[in-house]
């Protein structure tokens, strides 16, 4: 019995380790404790808060878009299911505020036109070099997949936005570099981007620093994973389906296995053993009690 228990513990241990180690390996950079927030998009049933995403877009547009691009996002995404779900008209109106280069036309000339739903988000700078040069040598990263490109994801972005502090007295900072509690190395070239009331929400939400950070972080998680909601929905259905299927398959398997070798055979087998044991104990000719 003890041997069996021992084996079982060993098995559980190895499975546990195999799963735990990859996790702990990549969480090494998560040692800094980010600010704890309840995100509506986390968990098995996580969905985005539409109004928060819409506000988040507003923050992106009014605050971040001056330097940061989201070049993998299209304007049509704004009206798609599972996102901020602006109406088609609203999304069209948003797109039309931007100009994109098109062409060549029949004269071979490139021309500018208002953006359409099918266009990708217009970037603030024509290329990485231009944006780097305009920002003192620090490239403001494209934010399309930012939430997936940083250890800590949403928590990291949220904490970073709220993590600006006075540098400790013995901490040396160059000009144009700021102190941030959550930035790896604590030095960041982006000045504090948000403050209370930096945007005025059209839906009347109080634009505190925390609210702004939360909204824009939600928006950035959505831009990183625009299908997150359908992913969660499908995942839930799939797991339920699998559980039912597993139960049915297990029952079928038990049924099939019970047919193996028919009862007679098993009894005969056990009887053989009985014979053997009895012979050992009584030293008799086993044939006598057939």
């Amino acid at each position: 019995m003890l041997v069996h228990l021992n084996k079982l513990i060993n098995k559980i241990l190895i499975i546990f380790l195999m799963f735990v180690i990859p996790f702990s390996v990549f969480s090494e950079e998560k040692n800094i404790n980010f600010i704890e927030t309840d995100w509506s998009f986390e968990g098995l049933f996580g969905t985005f808060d539409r109004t928060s995403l819409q506000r988040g877009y507003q923050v992106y547009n009014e605050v971040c878009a001056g330097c940061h691009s989201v070049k993998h996002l299209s304007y049509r995404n704004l009206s798609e299911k599972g996102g901020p779900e602006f109406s088609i008209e609203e999304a069209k109106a948003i797109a039309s505020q931007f100009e994109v280069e098109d062409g060549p036309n029949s004269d071979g000339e490139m021309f500018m036109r208002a953006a359409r739903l099918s266009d990708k988000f217009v970037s603030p700078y024509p290329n990485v070099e231009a944006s780097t040069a305009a920002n003192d040598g620090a490239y403001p990263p494209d934010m399309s997949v930012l939430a997936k490109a940083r250890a800590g994801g949403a928590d990291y972005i949220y904490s970073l936005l709220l993590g600006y502090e006075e540098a400790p007295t013995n901490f040396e900072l160059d000009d144009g570099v700021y102190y941030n509690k959550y930035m790896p190395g604590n030095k960041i070239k982006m000045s504090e981007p948000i403050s209370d009331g930096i945007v005025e929400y059209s839906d009347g939400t109080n634009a505190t620093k925390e609210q702004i950070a939360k909204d824009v972080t939600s928006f950035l998680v959505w831009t990183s994973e625009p299908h997150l909601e359908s992913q969660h929905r499908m995942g839930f259905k799939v797991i339920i389906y699998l559980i039912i299927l597993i139960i049915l398959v297990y029952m079928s398997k038990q049924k099939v296995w019970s047919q193996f070798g028919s009862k007679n055979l098993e009894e005969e087998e056990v009887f053989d053993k009985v014979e053997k044991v009895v012979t050992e104990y009584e030293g008799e000719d086993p044939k006598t009690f057939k």
Partner: protein
Amino acid sequence: MSEEKYIPKSKLGQWFDSRLPLLTLSHHLQAYPTPKNLNYWWTFGGILTFCLITQIITGLVLAMHYVAHVDHAFESIEHIMRDVNYGWLIRYVHANGASMFFLAVYIHIFRSLYYGSYKSPREVIWIIGLLIYILMMATAFMGYVLPWGQMSFWGATVITNLFSAIPFIGESITTWLWGGYSVDNPTLNRFYSLHYLLPFLIFGLVILHIWALHVPGNNNPVGIDVKKNSNETMPFHPYMVMKDIFALLLFITVFLWFVFFAPNVLGHPDNYIEANRLVTPAHIVPEWYLLPFYAILRAIPSKLGGVIFMFAAIFILMLLPWLDTCKVRSATFRPIYKKCFWFLVFVVILLGYLGAKPPEGIYLILSRLATAYYFIHFLVILPTLGRYEKTDPLPQSISDPVLDKPGMLDKFKKAAVKYEGENASSFK
């Protein structure tokens, strides 16, 4: 192989089968006798076949949308994730599928180590299996380069640079591999081409692996030969098929849980940053399944030495059937080997952990000790144990140890009562 000759029932079947014996093959696969005492560790062969097929199918679809060019690769992945119908699902299945494939293959390999499945007469199965494993690592490594993120680029740079450690011709080999003087577009293109090719080679080897398995038949947890076509074996279909499907579904549940609820947890966040040759990531780490070898590579102070030891760590396994001189297969009857085995499991997992840590201080010391044990285990302990270990007595047949199982005693008693009448209690 089943001994009796199979003759199809229908005339058409006979006509066809005498020209191409596909029906005989199908019959053989169904009737293939498997030991009835196989436990769930034996279901991973089927699971691995499933993994390979999943990777090939999802990969095929991804290849329809992916662009193998340094300027477009990253963008085309985002295109797949955003604009292709269910592209996110296909890509996440493919990316997590690689991790699951390795998880299953490691269980499969360690199962073989525990139960001595590599021993005579199954050496060829073992060696083909290792060739599959090596090709898997190459395929996975090249696949990881394709998204052209930071880890793709720098991982490729580090690994291809290993070949420059070869004396005299190393530099030329690296240039040849790169198709230039650094990891660049030609490198990406050839990696894509090879990443597409290798899975089909793996598929071919899998067929050989199974063929080689069907000659001697399965090993089993007791590790002694079974009598074929006795009540010790059961036909593969439907018994093993049902059991394999059940285990496979459990595996798929874990797999899909990762896909839907934690698709990026096994990857590295830096790979969502587009490759940039001017910025080196703080820590360059390979995917988790390559970490033990990465730790061995860095444990050796010289570059060439590290490369030699890393490859030796893989190729030493090829010699395993001859390094392990013990005739008893299953670790169940080898008390000392069993302890060494579990320690090896621990050491390999430890190496994986250390591979992700910077090679300094305590991490470096530990990885050297772990590397030392890894080689001592195979080169010293196994050959010695074969000579000096006192193994437990082996049972006569695979049915014997069944008596030890809880519940069997009751059955035993019941049967005894039935045949013996009231006196049954006397020989308890």
